[in-house]
């Protein structure tokens, strides 16, 4: 049973208590506690259940590598699953619940799985759920989904109340890790004058050194750490950041760092997380090392902990993990734990050392303190169901025959240390196997390289394999100095502080304990705690032919949990190598990928949520639309009014009313989103002739012409009205969605192909508010406002344009008619747009002025048979398909798309062509319908002979109208064809169709008399 010691705890403030709850139980801790230390201090040793077997699990580590103690943190809006108790700083009011248990943490039904481990071996799911095939979707998958997942997913109806942000920084050096190596590296880089960002993932500087009793320059490490931090704080060019984890290293020196700004103080008005997006020349990974577990039977039981974690809990938080702790090890470092336990006044019944000999200074000190040291021994079994009650010892060299039972309530294990090489590896740094230390460390000859081919990441201190404090500082200094030289910022000469700690004898690589353990024992040795992968699973995978470590990982799920194998990877691949009869370095590691530990989705999203999730583009008239109850639709990033429903009016009724009002009197359309691009220069005419399929160079100033633009593959990509401003200047109107794309298209051709043509373009889309003044009364309303222009048909005929003053506004007027009525498209500088819109409404009262939206616009253009990019075109349609041959110049030598349109497929007479469609019953053909034909194709699907491209109810004609592309359509006028519908046929009945007559696409005013008055 764990408890709080009466003294000690360098990180906690014993003078204050803070309250929190775990599974509804009210508990207390101290400021400075982590959730894990506070739970241990409260006697809560079981903190979660494992993924597959639902085994009870206690905390095994004290930091970022923790696989077991994952909790649901917070509730309701702030609920977040899979939070590591070891990295969760305790705060007042913290609420946590344990995961993966039912009905309770202590008594779990799923634990029955644990009794059946031989029925859940490696690859169980692959083997079991593969046949019969049909079972997967309806039987297996739902079952697996039920039992899958650790934490509870956040409630989708709740919205995270916190805010998040990104922060971009540019620097010379990013140092990951604020232990003594990171601090030393920062000193060097700081003195060299480099811009430095030093990140430490915890809330404290100095890392492990103070816990491990390291002395620096003859004083406790803590003194040197405080002094050094002070020195660094005084350097203008060094930026220190606590609670900030370097999550990933990417190409071109791009770094993501994850700052947990307010996790420890949730009430504060601060962003909760901040994602640092850093550009740096170099990275120093002073990320330390992680201790490895030992693989002995029952090593996953609550109360079995990493030796280093145990002394962390004692030294940092004044927490005793147990009264009697057995230490099991293959190295000298774990003896520090035994000494720390002793120093805290607790018992160490024995140290079980797998090595045949142990006689280093730490061993001698342990013996001197009266601790029994057993060499050549191992643990054969851990007794106890929900905790440790005893361990059974055996010879390490044997098969596990029990030689002695030791009563204890905790076990501290140490299988050696592995440098944290993740950041070195993210961008491709290679590793080398260090035989003496039994770990992978960075291969200095094969670093990750940047855009210049230079290595841009170095590891410093323990991360570079300099595990012992004595080597750590000097290694950090040398690594940093070499790196600074490589970037042309050599550090000035300076004395490196001398770190000292007890000498350590070499470890013995122990991957299985005892080494000769039989199948039963091997199936109780956990490698991956979170995913329940055991020694037996990896060995089975090897027997089944899995040789690649990457395949074994996926087959067994070793290292695939939220901790990404921080504890399990090296042990797992050592077991695999042994099973394959290979050397460890030949088997290699799995790939290290960012992030180092999981980062929040909130941090990734940053500020992009709610109102600023995406930029909404607003026209100068946007507020008017909103104030007038417009139903807005997205068009690109714009929001456009679809229609303006009045009280109790359906959208369809609103659209019909708007059309009737426009055709009967006066309608106003916000057309500001239309693209407007100026093309100017001596070669502008020639350029326009290439861009458009028709002749534009012959257009006279003061005139407009409708034009089509094709891609070089011949497909119709945009259309619009071009106005010639003067001899050198054209104004091209594009579709709303086409403005940026077409401008880029123009610049592409000008910059890459026709770089010697004298043409400049400018996208002036947003400079202008553009309003369609449409209907028989459109001229009257403009004249009523008062103008210095002659707007008569004679002075400003259809497809003419002019500029002048109307009602005091600086206006350009284009006589164009998308709706087929007398109409004037007028544009004024955006700043005048709203005032003009209001003035038109006021003056238009007597003409029944009505604002109309995009849907009314669509219906009216369809009544006129005008095509719409995106409806009649879909990237596979050429102008010839749409009967637009009149807009394709025969005289021009070339235009973009001309050559492509001559290809055989493009000139195929059986290409579907545009026609109008009139249903016989007056109904509206469903959107997306196909015209059915006789027979079936090779796949047994019904044949088709056309499809609908636009289909609407026409209030003008009081019937359904449609346009569509039909096989030989223009030659089949008057013929009736059938379109499929979505109406469900009665059983035995053939599917319902709707009959439509092929007609001209121009349904309304075919002679154009209305627009030409």
């Amino acid at each position, binding site marked *: 049973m764990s408890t709080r010691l009466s003294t000690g705890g360098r990180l906690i403030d014993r003078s204050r208590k803070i309250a929190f709850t775990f599974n509804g139980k009210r508990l207390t801790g101290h400021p400075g506690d982590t959730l894990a230390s506070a739970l241990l201090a409260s006697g809560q040793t079981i903190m979660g259940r494992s993924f597959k077997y639902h085994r009870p699990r206690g905390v095994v580590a004290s930091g970022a590598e923790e696989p077991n103690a994952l909790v649901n943190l917070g509730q309701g809006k702030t609920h977040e699953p899979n939070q590591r108790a070891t990295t969760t700083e305790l705060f007042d009011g913290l609420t946590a619940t344990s995961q993966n248990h039912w009905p309770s943490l202590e008594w779990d039904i799923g634990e029955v799985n644990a009794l059946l481990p031989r029925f859940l071996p490696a690859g169980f799911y692959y083997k079991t759920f593969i046949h019969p095939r049909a079972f997967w979707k309806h039987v297996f998958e739902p079952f697996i989904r039920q039992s899958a997942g650790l934490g509870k997913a956040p409630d989708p109806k709740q919205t995270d109340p916190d805010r998040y942000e*990104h922060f*971009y920084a540019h620097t010379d050096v990013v140092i990951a890790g604020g232990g003594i190596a990171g601090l030393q590296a920062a000193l060097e880089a700081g003195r060299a004058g480099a811009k430095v960002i030093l990140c430490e993932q915890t809330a404290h500087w100095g890392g492990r050194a103070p816990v491990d009793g390291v002395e620096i320059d003859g004083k406790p490490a803590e003194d040197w750490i405080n002094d050094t931090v002070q020195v660094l704080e005084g350097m203008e060019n060094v930026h220190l950041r606590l609670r900030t984890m370097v999550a990933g290293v990417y190409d071109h020196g791009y770094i993501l760092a994850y700052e947990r700004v307010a996790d420890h103080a949730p009430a504060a*008005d601060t962003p909760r997380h901040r994602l640092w997006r850093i550009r740096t020349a170099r990275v120093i990974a002073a990320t330390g090392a992680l201790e490895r577990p030992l693989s002995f039977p029952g090593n996953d039981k609550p109360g079995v902990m990493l030796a280093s974690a145990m002394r962390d809990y004692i030294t940092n938080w004044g927490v005793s993990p147990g009264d009697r702790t057995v230490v099991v090890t293959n190295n000298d470092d774990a003896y520090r734990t035994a000494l720390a336990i002793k120093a805290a006044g607790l018992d160490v019944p024995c140290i079980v050392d797998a090595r045949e000999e142990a006689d280093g200074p730490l061993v001698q000190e342990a013996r001197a303190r009266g601790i029994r040291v057993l060499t050549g021994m191992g643990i054969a079994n851990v007794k106890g169901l929900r905790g440790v009650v005893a361990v059974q010892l055996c010879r390490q060299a044997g098969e596990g025959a029990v030689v002695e039972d030791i009563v204890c309530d905790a076990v501290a294990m140490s299988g050696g240390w592995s440098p944290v090489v993740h950041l070195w590896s993210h961008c491709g740094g290679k590793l080398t196997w260090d035989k003496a230390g039994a770990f992978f460390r960075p291969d200095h000859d094969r670093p990750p390289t940047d855009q210049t081919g230079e290595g841009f990441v170095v590891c410093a201190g323990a991360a570079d394999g300099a595990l012992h404090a004595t080597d750590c500082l000097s290694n950090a200094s040398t690594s940093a100095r070499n790196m600074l030289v490589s970037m042309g910022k050599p550090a000035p000469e300076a004395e490196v502080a001398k770190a000292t700690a007890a000498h350590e004898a070499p470890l013995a690589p122990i991957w299985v304990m005892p080494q000769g353990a039989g199948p039963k024992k091997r199936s109780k040795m956990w490698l991956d705690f979170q995913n329940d992968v055991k020694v037996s699973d990896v060995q089975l995978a090897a027997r089944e032919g899995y040789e690649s470590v990457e395949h074994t990982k996926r087959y067994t799920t070793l290292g695939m949990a939220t901790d990404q194998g921080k504890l399990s990877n090296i042990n797992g691949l050592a077991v695999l190598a042994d099973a394959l009869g290979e050397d460890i370095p030949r088997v290699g590691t799995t790939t290290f990928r960012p992030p180092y530990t999981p980062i929040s989705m909130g941090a990734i999203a940053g*500020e992009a949520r709610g109102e600023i999730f995406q930029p909404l583009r607003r026209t100068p008239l946007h507020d008017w639309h909103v104030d007038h109850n417009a139903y807005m639709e997205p068009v690109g990033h714009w929001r456009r009014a679809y229609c303006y429903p009045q009280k109790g009016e359906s959208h369809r009724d609103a659209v019909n009313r708007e059309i009737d009002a426009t055709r009967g009197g006066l309608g106003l359309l916000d057309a500001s989103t239309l693209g407007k691009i100026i093309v100017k220069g001596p070669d502008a005419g020639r350029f326009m002739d290439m861009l458009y399929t028709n002749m534009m160079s012959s257009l006279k100033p003061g005139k407009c012409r409708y034009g089509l633009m094709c891609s070089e593959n011949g497909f119709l990509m945009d259309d619009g009205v071009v106005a010639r401003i003067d001899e050198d200047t054209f104004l091209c109107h594009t579709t709303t969605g086409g403005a940026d794309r077409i401008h880029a298209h123009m610049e592409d051709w000008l910059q890459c192909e026709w770089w010697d043509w004298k043409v400049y373009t*400018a996208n*002036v889309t947003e400079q202008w508010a553009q309003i369609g003044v449409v209907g028989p009364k459109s001229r009257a309303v403009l004249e009523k406002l008062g103008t210095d222009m002659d707007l008569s048909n004679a002075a400003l005929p259809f497809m003419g344009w002019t500029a002048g003053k109307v009602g005091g506004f600086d206006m350009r007027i284009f006589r164009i008619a998308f709706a087929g009525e007398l109409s004037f498209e007028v544009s004024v500088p955006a700043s*005048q747009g709203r005032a003009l819109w209001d003035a038109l409404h006021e003056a238009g009262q007597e003409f029944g002025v009505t604002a109309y939206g995009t849907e009314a616009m669509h219906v009216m253009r369809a009544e006129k048979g005008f095509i719409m990019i995106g409806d009649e075109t879909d990237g596979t349609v050429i102008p010839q398909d749409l009967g637009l041959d009149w807009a394709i110049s025969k005289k021009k030598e070339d235009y973009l798309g001309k050559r492509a349109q001559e290809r055989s497929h493009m000139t195929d007479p059986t290409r579907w062509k545009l026609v109008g469609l009139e249903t016989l019953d007056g109904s509206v053909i469903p959107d997306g319908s196909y015209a059915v034909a006789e027979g079936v194709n090779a796949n047994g699907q019904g044949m088709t002979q056309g499809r609908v491209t636009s289909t609407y109810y026409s209030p003008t004609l009081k019937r359904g109208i449609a346009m569509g592309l039909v096989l030989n359509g223009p030659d089949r006028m008057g013929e009736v064809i059938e379109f499929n519908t979505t109406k469900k046929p009665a059983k035995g009945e053939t599917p319902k169709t709707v009959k439509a007559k092929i007609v001209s696409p121009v349904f309304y005013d075919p002679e154009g008399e209305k627009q030409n008055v």
Partner: protein
Amino acid sequence: MSDLVKSALPGARAEGLVSIEEMGLSGMVTLRVDLSAAGAAIAQVTGADMPGPRAISAGQGCHVAWMSPDELLILCDHARADAMVADLTAALEGQHHLAVNVSDARALFRVSGPGGALRDTLAKITPADMSADALPPGEMRRTRLQQVAGAIWFESETEARVICFRSVARYTFDLLAMSAKPGGAVGYH
């Protein structure tokens, strides 16, 4: 008429770590021309020297900003923009160029406050280097403001200008206001 002429977000203001303020209408002219041959015309019309890459140079009642190897942005009073276009067109008579009034296509914000907080706030929305040595007063940086295009320059260490397209003025203002919220201090710059 003049009281009916509106900028994108008239009077919009937000206070926090820094102050953000929409500056109302201002004159802007895009000039595309061979910069190496337009120095005299620029000097004649604006009184400004031809700015080097990414620089802004001051003229008489206006500023000239370098936008790209063949594009300048001239900032002046809103009322003067049309005349500016006409003057440039006249001064560049016979020379291939494009001068166009884009005043209303944009929105302009003043962001002011303590230098460090100012640069920190901006560093939350732009990937460009906001440090004082990377973007000193007198230089304009075209960049992105999270999801939209924009440009930033410093009038002084305590006052910056942010420019964006008119249609996304609200987005840009909201971004700036969110980034300047109290409690979000970074302390980096």
